[in-house]
């Protein structure tokens, strides 16, 4: 059994270090070898997440969370339970992250195809993610009356941010940056509206298995339906009562 583990460089991680040593000292090293190897492989891999990427991921996480909380009215309206509420936030967050990844990919491809400038995916992802910084204020959408105006404002701010960030990072003019940013968004809209791709079905399936609800309906429709149903029930009950009395 080759235990050519390199214990150097993991001194800053005392818990794992100690655990790895305990695995080494065991009488039957082959038993926990897989686990020990995995730990040491993880430990010896250089940290691939750059501080810029960490920063971008943090922005993205906070933005998505804040935005989802701001838009949570649809979850309440659809009468989700507390646990469904959390799961729905996570599921919607995941779907939102997918659309951001797609947008990143489109910016990367479009800038390369249209203007011959290529940047690594990670760099473009950082640019796109940072553009979402205004959505950290997404929870403000909850504010009655002013909330939906703020939402519109935040969305415009994000798009402007993206255009500026792309222009700056790629050295593009405003027109080029506008084309690269918005074409991706249009493409995303187009793809999601193509019925033969059945993305809607996939989304409904995903929401069904993660949150237990496939359809999230408009609050007004739900409330109207409830009032009509209550009225119908009352009249039916009254009719039955009359019949019973007769």
């Amino acid at each position, binding site marked *: 059994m080759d235990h050519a583990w390199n214990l150097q460089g993991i001194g800053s991680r005392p818990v794992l270090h100690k655990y790895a040593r305990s695995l080494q000292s065991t009488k039957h090293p082959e038993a926990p070898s897989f686990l020990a190897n995995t730990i040491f492989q993880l430990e010896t891999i250089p940290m691939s997440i750059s501080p810029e990427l960490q920063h971008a991921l943090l922005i993205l996480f906070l933005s998505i969370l804040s935005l989802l909380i701001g838009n949570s009215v649809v*979850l309440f309206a659809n009468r989700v339970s507390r646990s469904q509420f959390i799961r729905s936030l996570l599921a919607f967050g995941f779907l939102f992250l997918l659309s951001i990844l797609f947008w990143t990919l489109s910016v990367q491809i479009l800038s390369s195809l249209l203007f011959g400038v290529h940047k690594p995916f990670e760099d473009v992802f950082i640019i796109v993610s940072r553009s979402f910084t205004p959505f950290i204020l997404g929870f403000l959408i909850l504010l009655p009356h002013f*909330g939906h105006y703020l939402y519109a404002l935040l969305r415009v701010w994000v798009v402007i941010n993206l255009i500026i960030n792309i222009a700056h990072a790629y050295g593009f003019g405003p027109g080029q940056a506008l084309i690269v940013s918005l074409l991706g968004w249009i493409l995303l809209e187009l793809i999601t509206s193509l019925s033969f791709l059945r993305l809607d079905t996939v989304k409904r399936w995903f929401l069904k298995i993660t949150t237990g609800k496939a359809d999230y309906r408009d609050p*007004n429709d739900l409330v109207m339906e409830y009032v*009509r149903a209550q009225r119908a029930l009352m*009249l039916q009950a009254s009719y039955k009562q009359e019949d019973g009395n007769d």
Partner: protein
Amino acid sequence: MIDAFILTALSLIAIVLGLLFIMALLSPLEALTWWAGWSDHAPSPGKLSKEAREEIEKQEEKKRENSPPPRYYLVYLTAIGGVSAEEISHREQIFLEKLSEALPEAIIISDVYPFSVTNNPLTGERMFGWLWRKIHEKRKTITGGILASFIFARNLFNVAVSADPRYGPINNAGVAREITKSLYRHDYPLEGDIPVITMGWSGGGQIAVGVAPFLHLGLDAPIYVVSIGGVLTDDPSIAFVEHLWHLQGSKDKFPRIGDILFPGRWPLIKKSTWNRFKRAGKMTVIVPGPMIHTGKGDYFDPKTKLSDGQPHVEKTVAIIRDAVRSIQPPVSTSLQVEVNQPLQR
């Protein structure tokens, strides 16, 4: 010394603004959590509540008694200074008594608190009920008077919730449900048809409009609105109102807030529900006199008199009486026919 004073004053302002901001942010939660079933008295779609079943039995007994029903039902909704439907001001009580005398053919209801989806008073069983009770108790003192601004703010945010297209339907359906319960408690017939007039003072005016669709659908009744210095928004619920009478004293500037804050009320937005409603001739604006929004000289003041010697409250009552009596009774629908209607939809 002055610096310390300014610093303290600024800190206090920042704290107050921060509190108001948090209150605004959390204001939709009462309605949302109620609807989602996270709180007490949640609606139960698909089944009738025990109260509703009891009401049906009571109605059957009433039918056998054969007593003539009233011609109108008026529902009074208090202003944003209110903490409950019971603890309304003395002036409002005088107004309601006088209105009751002026309209003996009507039943006047005033037991619904318009700023709660469960008719739960601000001073009732709720998380910060104790705080609202303390503020309300000390309202007559100077400190209490200042603190009472939080009551106004809390209810003002509730008006904004009612007017918000995202939360409005849920909030207004809750208040309408409470009004419906109260109407049935006051023997409103299950067949509907009898005109229901919601009367709202100040912020209650918006709620009076907001509940219209749900009362119309839930009761199968024509809904009319009387706004007494009401701060009306661009809520599309107005489409369900048969007619709106808006009383606005010449010295009352508060209702004008709605003209500015709500784009649907701007004359520029011609296709808004509000502007279409106005163009259809369904709105009557009445200037009863030099009345202010609230306090001495307001719509309900029994002491302040107009130039012709008529007290303000008498004038307000006379206008509402005439407005209500101008309502034509609707054509009655048979209960038997209506029973199947909702099922066919």
